[in-house]
């Protein structure tokens, strides 16, 4: 029993270690105290900010934009990915375009989207959706294309029509890969949203919070906002993992 119980606490070692090092750095003033506040000050700022403070509001704004972006991206990219993946020849014909824009830093698209949609939320959300959609599209298409041949043949030999093979087999076969795309997509969308909040005329959001705290030299607030952003990214990833385990119970088996 003992080793198993201890194993549960293994992930905590890194966390405790980081905090200890942080404390020592503050204690011995390795870094200028103005630049590195103590963990206690930082977590107090995080707690106060999240519990009814400004930070909680910004957290929700960023979450809202990211979720909206990923929903739009999924709604466009999943059906499109299935359609493209169902025929390898069709996918090959657009593969270069998809790969090219997938490799283009989405932040390079900000000026274009600013011209199209102005400085409001639409721009932030649509750039994030654009980046995430390409990641999802690519994964869904590959998931469909890499459906096990035997499984497709099995359905065919039992008399399934092409449409039934698509809905009963290809779609489900592509689900594990689709979730890989969704998880990567949501991480990317968060990155883009936070960057957009920093630089594109924002009045709220975690990006704006980090940026503003830095400008005002409110270091505990800045670190608190960074941790909040980290927590948001980690939480979203975890959420998608849990949903995936629920819906794609056969993944990896």
């Amino acid at each position, binding site marked *: 029993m003992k080793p198993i119980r201890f194993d549960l606490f293994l992930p905590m070692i890194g966390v405790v270690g980081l905090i200890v090092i942080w404390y020592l750095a503050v204690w011995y003033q390795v870094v200028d105290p103005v630049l590195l506040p103590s963990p206690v000050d930082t977590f107090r700022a995080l707690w106060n900010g999240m519990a009814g403070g400004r930070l909680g509001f910004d957290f929700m704004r960023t979450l809202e934009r990211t979720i909206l972006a990923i929903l739009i991206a999924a709604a466009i990219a999943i059906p499109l990915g299935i359609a493209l993946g169902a025929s390898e020849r069709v996918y090959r014909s657009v593969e270069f375009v998809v790969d090219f824009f997938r490799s283009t830093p989405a932040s390079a698209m900000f000026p274009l989207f600013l011209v199209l949609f102005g400085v409001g939320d639409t721009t932030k959300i649509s750039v994030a959706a654009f980046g995430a959609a390409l990641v999802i599209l690519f994964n869904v298409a590959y998931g469909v294309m890499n459906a*096990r*041949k*035997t*499984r497709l*043949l*099995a359905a*065919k*030999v*039992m*008399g*399934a029509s092409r449409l*039934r093979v698509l809905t*009963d*087999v290809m779609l*489900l076969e592509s*689900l594990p890969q689709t979730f890989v795309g969704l998880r990567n997509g949501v991480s990317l969308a968060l990155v883009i949203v936070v960057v957009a909040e920093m630089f594109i005329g924002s009045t709220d959001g975690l990006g704006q919070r980090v940026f503003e705290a830095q400008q005002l030299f409110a270091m505990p607030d800045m670190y608190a906002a960074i941790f909040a952003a980290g927590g948001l990214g980690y939480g979203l990833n975890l959420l998608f993992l849990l949903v995936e385990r629920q819906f*794609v*119970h*056969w993944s990896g*088996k």
Partner: protein
Amino acid sequence: MSLPAHQGRVPAGEGGAAATSAHVTIRGLTKHFPDAVVYDRFDFDIPRGKLVSVFGPNGCGKSTLINMITGLIPIDAGEILFDGKPLRDIKFGYVFQNYREALFPWLRAIDNIQYPLKLMKLPKAERRMRTERMIASLGVKIDLKRYPYELSSGQQQLVSIMRALVVEPQILFLDEPFSALDYEMTLFMRDQLQRVFVETGTTTVLVSHDLEEAVYLADRILLLSRRPAAIADYVHYDAARPRTDATLSQHDFVRVKAHCLEVFQREVRKG
């Protein structure tokens, strides 16, 4: 070398007193792969209510043969008829070698088995009735509420055999169904298949790469030559069923197996 009494080389029709009618007639079957001629005007009759094992050198086209008969691979020329009818008019079952990839992991075992009935658009009650009837007749003791990946390898293959049988097929095709199983499970599954065959009397075509298995289960052994595949020999084996471990050491079995091996090695050497 004395041969089994009914041994014959005539592909079309069996002739003789113990004649069985042809269930599937294959005429002029021709298939080219980019690099080779696999079949060139191949004729063969699959006898009704018999279990035919297909055996031959590696890559001679054993699996290709049943894949063409079942429409998984298009043919270049020739004709394959089931009681004079085309493939789309008949019900058949097909069991893949790779059960892990042939079953649907997102469906429970029972739903995997019922899937072909769903494709036939049978009402739910009818689907359940048919499945229960088949499970009862096979005497299967597997928890079918489980997902395929929760079952042992043999159980998974048994589920895919049940999925093939649930439509009450006129013909059952099996492509090296036991070659991915360990030896213990293979022995068990051979007897399960024999039991299915004795119970249902369904015309069965078994592609095998294991000569012992091919003879043990068969009424007829179709020995193929190297490419382009032709009939090297067509051997009868009429030992009574159910056959058991004791069968494996009986004179008749040993003789038929030795004969098949001889033909096989002659064909291998030709290449």
